Structure formats: C-alpha cells, structure tokens
C-alpha cells in the first residue's frame, strides 16, 4: 500500500494535516514492499521557527548575509530539521512513534528556502515484529538531500 501525507509550508494559515487511518488502527500490518511518502516545503520562516524550537541559532540558518558568505543562495535549513522530517516520515508509516528504534542518514546536499523535500520510504524487510525501512529524500530538482537513510523499528503489538 502507499500512503501519502503532504504538509504544505504555511505561515499564514494552519495547513491541513492528513492524519493517517493507521494511527487509529488497533493492529497494524507491515509488509515488504509497502511504500510511504512525506512532503515538506521550506517556507522562508522555517529555519527561524526551527531555530527557536530547537535552540540552533547558527547564523547560517537565520542570516542571509552569513548564508551567502558561506557560499549558499541565502540561509540553509538546519540539517536536524531535515532529519526530523525523516523521523516523522517513518513514524507516519509506523503509526506508533515508540516503535522506531534506529535511524541514520547522511546529509548530501544543503536544503534551502523554497525547496520542497519529498521523502519516499519503502518497507524492505519484515522479520516477526522487526521492520526495516529505506527512505529516499529528494528536492524539487530530484537531487538527493539525504543518502543511506535506514530505519529499524519493532512493531508495537509485539513488544512487552
């Protein structure tokens, strides 16, 4: 099955979040080949909002002058914001946030204001309660902003 959650960037009105039905299902089934998708847009205020919420006020994320001096078009998004989106993409598929046990990725391209990042995940292994996901994250030009993104989870109903 494929599930899509698209959350538009928004500063003026609260976007609608399409909550998946899976979160309310008492039993969840995970099957190799399942896919999921999660889309985030980097609106101009996102790096500042993330700075405030995370405490990462590195000027490269909030000051265009510093961003340009470092060789970018302007500010770049905090890598950990992208990583948080990756986490949320996995949780959107898993349903239970506590089932996520491991997550890793390499940052391969800076994410900038105006980018639209598409996370496309796939369930690649299911062994009893153990689930492995692989996720690709690309920008609107199709360039990978993360590589080697892999998540390991343990399905909730199988835990003690």
């Amino acid at each position, binding site marked *: 099955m494929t599930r899509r959650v698209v959350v538009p960037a928004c500063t003026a009105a609260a976007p609608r979040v399409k909550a998946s039905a899976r979160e309310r299902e008492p039993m969840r089934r995970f099957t190799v080949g399942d896919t999921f998708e999660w889309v985030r847009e980097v609106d101009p205020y996102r790096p500042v909002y993330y700075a405030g*919420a995370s405490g990462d006020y590195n000027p490269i994320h909030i000051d265009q002058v510093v961003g340009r001096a470092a060789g970018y078009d302007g500010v770049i998004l905090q890598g950990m914001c992208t990583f948080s989106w990756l986490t*949320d993409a996995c949780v959107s598929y898993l349903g*239970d*946030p506590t089932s996520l*046990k491991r*997550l890793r*990725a390499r*940052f391969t391209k800076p994410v900038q204001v105006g980018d639209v990042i598409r996370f496309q995940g796939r369930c690649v292994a299911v062994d009893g309660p153990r689930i492995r996901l692989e996720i690709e994250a690309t920008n609107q030009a199709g360039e990978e902003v993360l590589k080697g993104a892999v998540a390991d989870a343990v399905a909730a109903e199988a835990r003690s």
Partner: protein
Amino acid sequence: MSVDRRHLGRRYGPYRFEAGRESILDFAAATGGRVPGRVFQNAPPAASPPPHLAGGDGAGPLLAPPSYAAVFAIQPFATACADPEIGLNVLRLVHGEQAFEFHEPVRAGDTLVTTGTITRAQERGNLDFLEVTTETVNQHGRLVVRGVWTAIVRN
C-alpha cells in the same frame, strides 16, 4: 588545520535538559509546517496535535516525538564543533551524518542528562571528520537515546 586524533575520547557534559510541554509542542509545530509559540499561531497546539504526537495513547504527560532528540541531545556535538581546543573552522563545517538509537521515550516533565565523547577524529583527503557519540539518560537512570553526530570540515 586538520583534526587531531589526540582528541579521541574527549568528553563533554553532562548537560541537563528539562523537557517542557511547551518546548515539545513548539518543536512539533516547527517541524510540522506550523508556527511555534503562543502568539502568531492560528490555532492552539491542542486543537491540531500532529499525528505523530498523538501516538495512540491519551494517558500521561505529552509524549515527545523521537525527533525531539535533536533538541536535548545536541549539546555535546555543538560544543565539540565550537571547541577552541579542537579548532574546527565552523564556517566550513557541515553536519555530515546522523544516527539515533531510541530507547526510553521522552515525556513532558522528564529530566534528561546528556554526555558526549569524541569517537572519531580523522582526516580523509581534504576532509576532516569529527564524530561525537552521545548518551542521554532520564531521571530514572534509563537510557533514552544514543546519538552519533558527525561533522565534516572541508579544508
């Protein structure tokens, strides 16, 4: 200047962090395409809890999303990257890799203590790699998250 292997094993912390309900909600808003804070937002957070915060359990203090580790566990890495003893050029530094191992979930009201150790300090080509491994424990002494944070500096 290249990173020196003698810094291997250098430790940072412990850093204490109180996981507040508003902090968790602000983080969920900032990463959820919404507006954090209690002023310029269009709806109170409680009116539109992000699906990953709901977590299927309505009982007990607010459950933080796993990604919240980016807030409470980053300090040893951030401090190492700016440590004058190590002397990385922060203008040429990027966050290169990240890994988390999630153990005990975090709830609003938890007290989290994070320590970090430099576990890799290596020059490869014209790149320097600095890896900091962090461990966070909660007020019950239980391991919450282990993080591996890697900075890459282009020389």
